[in-house]
């Protein structure tokens, strides 16, 4: 049930460009898993390109660490590289280590394996044993891990002191930010890749949770469990925690707020403890009326005090278990959101249609796009279409008399336009709200089957 892809690290939309002595192999049809199988069994294959659209794969004899090679963005390719060649930590005794460390733990330079001076030896490179250049290796399963002969005549060989992967990167709190290379569970079972649905089907698709770091088959904590875990390649065991060293220093909580909440409210430390429908929250250290996993001692960084609204699992907003049996959880959206806009740098009169100031930032702090530019947004309003509107450089303006004030196209590709960090000079005159003197006709909207309304359920 282990996928051959488990030995590979995937880089999406990436191509490996090399200045090769000889061109790589021609692409062949195959799924990513078939490509991985071929690359695994090929001695000199270290990576492969997989074209998702055409389902083609091209085996490559180099990785991003090879000389004269560089990574490049390319939406047609996914690049898979053998983990052994990328890791800078070791699994077990490091026999499979194929990294590029070439100095010993005491800083001595390693002697190339091909050379027999200053130290003669019998470990000569072959296509199978992975001995290469002067990189640290472990050809004789030495318990201390990868080593090498040194270029110091007085020191025949020395360990390279490469850390074990579970110690290489430590985790803080519950490991939700852990992005380290451990890919085995605490009982030693290899993890299943997050982008595969076998042997275990699961909801944590990497595309769906881009901020959880669900790379390859590394241990992660996407659901705010006690610590990082993974689905296992053992069909009989769905998921299991991983053993990862806890950092000595606990990080200072970020974005702490008490009277309002910012973002999803993970840093909210206020004292609201009643839901908006008036139900008191359940204490976090209680298991009734609702049993739950968020025991305060197991979540030291989440400040699960009393029965205050908190957000220990990255939900949409602070929430709590409620004291009512029929309502398990309730969001605390009634807590005010903290303002997240820049302070106004200037002011405008009326709608700002005559504003000629030099503010060129949106209220979120994004730089404005020049009015004459056509990137990242092709403007519908420009100095050509509105010559009289003084659309200079990238200054905020109001060429279309927008009732909400000066605005600009933005340099953020995802935000075509936005209002600026400018406020009305004086309290805005009450908007002329009109009643419907003349009849209004609506087209293709606002109609429904009214029968359902009258007939009660």
């Amino acid at each position: 049930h282990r996928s051959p892809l488990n030995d590979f690290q995937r880089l999406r939309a990436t191509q490996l460009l090399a200045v090769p002595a000889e061109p790589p192999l021609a692409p062949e049809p195959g799924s990513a898993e078939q490509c991985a199988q071929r690359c695994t069994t090929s001695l000199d294959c270290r990576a492969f390109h997989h074209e998702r659209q055409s389902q083609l794969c091209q085996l490559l004899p180099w990785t991003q660490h090879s000389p004269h090679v560089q990574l490049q963005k390319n939406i047609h390719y996914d690049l898979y590289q053998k983990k052994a060649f990328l890791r800078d930590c070791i699994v077990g005794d490091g026999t499979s280590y194929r990294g590029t460390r070439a100095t010993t733990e005491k800083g001595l330079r390693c002697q190339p394996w091909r050379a027999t001076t200053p130290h003669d030896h019998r470990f000569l490179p072959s296509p199978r044993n992975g001995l290469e250049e002067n990189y640290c290796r472990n050809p004789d399963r030495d318990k201390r891990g990868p080593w090498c002969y040194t270029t110091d005549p007085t020191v025949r060989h020395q360990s390279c002191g490469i850390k074990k992967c579970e110690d290489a990167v430590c985790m803080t709190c519950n490991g939700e930010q852990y992005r380290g290379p451990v890919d085995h569970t605490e009982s030693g079972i290899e993890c299943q890749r997050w982008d595969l649905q076998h042997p275990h089907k699961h909801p944590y698709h990497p595309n769906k949770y881009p901020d959880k770091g669900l790379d390859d088959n590394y241990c992660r904590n996407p659901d705010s469990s006690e610590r990082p875990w993974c689905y296992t390649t053992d069909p009989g065991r769905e998921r299991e925690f991983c053993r990862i060293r806890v950092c000595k220093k606990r990080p200072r909580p970020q974005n702490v707020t008490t009277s309002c909440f910012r973002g999803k409210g993970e840093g909210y430390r206020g004292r609201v403890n009643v839901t908006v429908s008036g139900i008191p929250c359940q204490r976090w250290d209680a298991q009734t009326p609702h049993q739950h996993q968020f025991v305060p001692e197991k979540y030291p960084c989440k400040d699960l005090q009393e029965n205050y609204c908190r957000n220990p699992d990255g939900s949409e907003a602070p929430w709590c278990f409620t004291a009512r049996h029929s309502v398990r959880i309730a969001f605390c959206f009634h807590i005010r959101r903290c303002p997240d806009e820049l302070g106004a740098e200037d002011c405008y009169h009326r709608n700002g249609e005559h504003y000629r100031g030099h503010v060129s930032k949106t209220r979120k702090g994004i730089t404005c796009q020049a009015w004459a530019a056509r990137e990242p947004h092709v403007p519908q309003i420009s100095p050509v279409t509105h010559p009289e509107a003084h659309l200079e450089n990238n200054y905020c303006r109001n060429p279309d008399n927008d009732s909400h004030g000066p605005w600009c196209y933005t340099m953020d590709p995802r935000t075509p336009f936005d209002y600026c960090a400018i406020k009305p000079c004086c309290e805005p005159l009450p908007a002329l709200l009109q009643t419907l003197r003349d009849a209004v006709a609506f087209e293709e909207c606002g109609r429904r089957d009214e029968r359902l309304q009258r007939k009660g359920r």
Partner: protein
Amino acid sequence: VVGGQPGNSPWTVSIRNRAGLHFCGGSLVKEQWVVSTRQCFASCDADLTGYQVQLGTLFKDPRPGDPDQQSIPILRIVCGPSESQLVMLKLARPAALNARVALICLPPERYIVPAGTVCEIAGWGETRGTSDGSVLNVARLPVLAHDECNAALRGRLKESELCTAPLRAGVGACEGDYGGPLACLTADCWVLEGVITPARVCARTDQPALFIRVSLYVDWIQKVMKM
């Protein structure tokens, strides 16, 4: 919705997070655009990958295979003018309009809903035991005159807010309804006059309920869809 009853509101959509949990409501104003409230979203450039809107079903959590149900990923969020508390969500593809899914009309710019007009809120939010919380609930509320409401709120009513009168039975929106519509019947069509925003307490019997006055932001809504 507290004090409501199961009903049909084909423009009301359920907004679901990555775990598929309903957390807010919205209104379908164009096949590919939903209006909701800023309070429901982490930020104006939140990554909404994995978030979806659900429409075409009366059930909050329909069984798989519900024929009319549509689930459409959300492409991105656009925040309204600062004091509007509005957001617009662009959908990954247009919703298919049918008997269960319809657009709600937008009001004329800066239109005042006459006091006493009976409007309707809708949502899958908390019912506090007053109705079946597993289906869409609707409730009728009368619009309160601006001055009267301002007096009741001791002068704290904003220009961008619209009020409905409190009902003795305790009728109103609640947690899970936020972002959903206050729809009023005008010229035989249901018009999106208000958007539900969080209050400190649901369905109060002694204070007006506040909604975002959509008619003040219709120009922005049209501009976003045009841009």
